[in-house]
């Protein structure tokens, strides 16, 4: 029975709610995986985003019956070798955005993992909902060195505020709480350092100030500082208190992370001495990651995908979100044209623009395909890394030309540890974005204490069993 061990944790979570942070772990410290869990690789959850929707007629397969045999549509071409591990789902509608109809691009990304419309009465501040990736991170994050990984290609500094909505909605899709967007990392070098500082600490990484190379007293020091912050909180006004709560939460996470790293090191030492549990679940050598020097977007995106694969392969995290591109000013010179993505999506069926958008779509899917193929080539347990992953690629708009959100484009890859039935095209899912997220989290064994955004059901047609 897979994931039975989660029941234990669910028991301890009862009454807290999976959608909340886990303060309990402060006293528990490092979460131990129950005995026997190591025999079954964990399920990892990944999300990758592209804005502005797709050219529909070049994205959706023509017929479910010939999904695996007919040549794939132009945009999905790069997935051809791994279509058997994919699930293409049509019929997933987005969050209705009225009365914020003038903000399609601020909402396409921010509603993508929240399935929730921002609070329209407080639109100049961030107020939305915890996102699906962070719900997952709250649950499985305590089991790994990093609760989750958030990556992006572009800096999250876009300054447009459609409909008076806060700028952050334009460039953030992960929300730790309704009011706390999670920033993404855009520098592959920093990501690498952050993932592996605990391993490389003996090679002088301490000089660059890595957390793991920190003073052994750091955790106790943070504890004292946290106590001081609580005293400060007590004498602040309530608006200030809410802000300080973000600080308290972040310091607690940091303590946990330091503890996790120390714990890993202790494990590794035990393993090296020939005893103790082996936490690493992979059977293969760590993949190589070369960090490119130039500014070629495909190389940049590939290295971010590599880092995701590497983090999953080494079980450094089980949740990852990659904003492959953002809804503003992005162009793709390596495709041979410098036009900005957004300007081309309002194509009015002009064939030149339609072609360009389709090529941008195909380019983004190709980076996703690169990651999927890499995962499919890595052995893990009786199968591959991909078998134990749920990788979702998609967009928060259906058709960038008219800003429609009826059939959002989604490709799901990976079998989720046997929970997802792949190799299929489902042409009429009749669900919404919340339903989809809820279904995928369910497959990853994440219990929910409330629906995700507008969700009303689980999409059983996607799952096996």
């Amino acid at each position, binding site marked *: 029975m897979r994931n039975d061990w989660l029941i234990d944790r669910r028991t301890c979570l009862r009454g807290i709610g999976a959608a909340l942070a886990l303060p309990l772990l402060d006293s528990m410290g490092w979460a131990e995986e129950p005995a026997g869990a190591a025999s079954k690789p964990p399920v990892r959850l990944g999300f990758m985003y592209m804005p502005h929707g797709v050219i529909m007629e070049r994205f959706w397969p023509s017929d479910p019956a010939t999904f695996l045999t007919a040549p794939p549509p132009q945009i999905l071409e790069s997935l051809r070798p791994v279509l058997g591990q994919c699930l293409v789902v049509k019929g997933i509608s987005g969050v209705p955005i009225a009365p914020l109809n*003038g903000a399609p691009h601020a909402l396409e990304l921010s509603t993508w993992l929240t399935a929730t419309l921002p609070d329209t*009465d*407080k639109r100049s501040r961030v107020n939305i909902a915890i996102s699906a990736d962070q719900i997952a991170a709250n649950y499985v994050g305590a089991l790994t060195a990093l609760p989750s990984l958030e990556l992006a290609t572009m800096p999250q500094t876009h300054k447009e505020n459609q409909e008076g909505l806060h700028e*952050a909605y334009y460039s953030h899709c992960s929300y730790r709480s309704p009011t706390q967007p999670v*920033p993404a*990392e*855009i520098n592959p070098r920093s990501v690498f350092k952050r993932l592996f500082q605990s391993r490389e600490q003996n090679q002088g990484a301490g000089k660059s100030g890595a957390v793991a190379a920190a003073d052994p007293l750091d955790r106790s020091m943070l504890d004292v*500082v946290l106590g001081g912050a609580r005293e400060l909180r007590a004498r602040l006004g309530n608006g200030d208190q809410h802000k300080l709560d973000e*600080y308290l939460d*972040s310091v607690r996470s940091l303590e946990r992370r330091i503890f996790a790293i120390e714990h890993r090191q202790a494990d590794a030492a035990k393993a090296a001495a020939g005893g103790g549990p082996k936490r690493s679940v992979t059977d293969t050598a760590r993949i190589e990651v070369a960090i490119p020097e130039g500014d070629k977007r495909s190389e940049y995106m590939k290295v971010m995908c590599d880092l995701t694969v590497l983090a999953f392969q080494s079980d450094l995290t089980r949740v990852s979100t990659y904003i492959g591109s953002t809804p503003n000013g992005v162009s793709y010179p390596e495709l041979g044209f410098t036009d900005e993505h957004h300007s081309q999506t309002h194509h009015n069926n002009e064939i030149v623009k339609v072609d360009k958008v389709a090529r941008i779509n195909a380019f983004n899917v190709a980076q996703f395909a690169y990651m999927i193929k890499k995962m499919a080539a890595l052995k893990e347990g009786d199968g591959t890394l991909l078998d134990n992953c749920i990788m979702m690629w998609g967009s928060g708009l259906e058709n960038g030309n008219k800003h429609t959100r009826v059939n959002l484009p989604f490709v799901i890859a990976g079998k989720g540890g046997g929970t997802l039935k792949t190799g299929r095209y489902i042409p009429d899912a009749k669900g919404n974005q919340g339903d989809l997220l809820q279904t995928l989290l369910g497959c990853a064994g994440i219990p929910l204490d409330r629906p995700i955004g507008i969700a009303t059901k689980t999409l059983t047609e996607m799952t096996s069993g």
Partner: protein
Amino acid sequence: MNARSHMLPARFSLLMGGVVLSLSVASAAESDADAGAGLAAARATAMKTHKEQITPFITTYCDRCHGEKKKKGGVTFEYAVKHPGASSFRPLWRQAVANIKTHDMPPEKEAKQPSEQERQVFLDWVAGMKHLSPKDPGPFVIRRLNKIEYGNTLHDLFGVDPRIVTELPDEVLGAGYLNSLSPLLMEQYLMVANEVLSRILAPAGAPPTAVQKQMFGAAPTVGQDVKAAAREVAKSLARRAYRRPASEAELDVLLRVFALATDAGKKYHEALRLMLKAILVSPQFLFITPAGDVDAKRDIVPLGDHQLASRLSYLLWATMPDAELSALADAGKLHEPEILAQQARRLLSDPRSRALFDGFGAQWLGLDKLATKTFDAAKFPQLTPALRTAMYEEARLLFDSIVRENRSLMTFIDCDYSFLDGTLAAIYGLQETVTGTAMRRVQFTDANRGGILTMPGILAMSSFPNRTSPVNRGVWVLEQVLGEHVPPPPADVPTLEKQDQKKVASMTLRQRTELHRNDPTCASCHKVLDPIGFGLENFDAIGRWREHDESGGAIDAAGELPGAQRFTSPKELKRIIAGRTADLCSNLTGRLLAYALCRQLEGYDEIVVDQLADAVAKDGYRMQTLVIAVVTSYPFTHRRLTDQPGIPHAK
């Protein structure tokens, strides 16, 4: 002016629309008391109109679809009409204004249609709605130092290179600042703290560095009170790092960290090292926090002097207050308006005030993204990093000269000088006279040059990667210079008539762009936008002068703006724009206030902008006056402690 603002519903065209009300405020603003009386009168009028005309208007024309029962399109006036001054409903009213103006609402099929006069009353009332907002400075929630401020503060404290923070994520500054903290950022703060300590302190056992000696002093000798010595060190370190005196309780926390280290067998300096690290990850360092307790009984309080010192210093310098500001805060004098203004002047005259351009000016002019904007390299090979830097520097130096020389805001539009180096001079066609790599002041003889409208970097930012965009340039001038809001084109833009491709190929960009003005949907906005863009067509996508565009056709830079204002060249267009001094002033005042407050403006802020802009106008629109007006303003010097302001009830 009104022809334009009717065309383009806007943040600040709302201000401009309220002509009657703002004039009464302006004429009454001689003294505070008069201003108060003027505001009270305006408020009474707005309340009366609300009761007698607006509520019936909503009931008659809107309620059936947007009332208590039906909320078509998610839109309802149910709550908004009960709380007319509440800023949370401002976007709803703005949308309503746009729909009422264009006759999109009520829908044509509805039998009951408001008369033109009724529509106008509605529009005027919304324009004057700000007068219903209660006096409110807005919140000043403890603010985290942004990436740049954090780096500069570390530099000022310890002499480390501010680039020590390079790996932190870039952030939106000013109105869109996301005052948020995440576990990732906290982890990075700890990493940076470690890095700082390893740079400035000697390794364990090694002799102390100079900085270390200065900060920590000598280790107490046998018999001396170690804890008392450590407490003294904590007190002085925290005073600087927290930018205010630390309370006894806060010092106790630091001493607990010190004890933690000594209990673990650390020597004096090593224990102080851990204490300093604790300071660097404390909220009092990472955020601007108030000293002392808040008075829980009060809703609105003035900023404490230390908080004010930080707010001022981070606004103008992007770094911590210096010794003089700190001393004035310690003496409890900084909040005195004269002293505050004098300090603002002093900060502006210091080179560190370039932070105001890097943070505010560059964002206003759109140049913060110049370094990374994609251009067609084959078409514009000259757009090297060096040229991009020179373009940015040109704008920065102009901004700086206007601030430092306390010039009129109009200088931004109509000045006859700029700052060039050899690279940039080539774009201006002045490569014969200006050479070398140093930026220097250059006087223009050609009146088509000079000012932000024709500055190469700015022209490049509003262009496509491979050509100019008259539409984008028009939007830029209206929004960034005049403070109007141009609504985005509808998503489903009707397809243009299929044009004979051969015919189109021989047309200039202007002739092709004009084609879409035949469509009434497009024309309403484009007849204002496009002429401005056409007037700038003599400048190519990177700002070089040209007589012909890429089709080979001659540039026709003539046009007409509403009010029969005709122009035939960029210099004449500039003159027309420069005539709208009050709009530029309102716009810049609003933008700088929002930047200074790190939030969007709403409700009562709009009244504040009116008052400040008015004061700036009276002093010849001078730049320093504008900055001082903002830093001495009510919302900059006060804060609301509660989450929501009181909502006035319509009687």
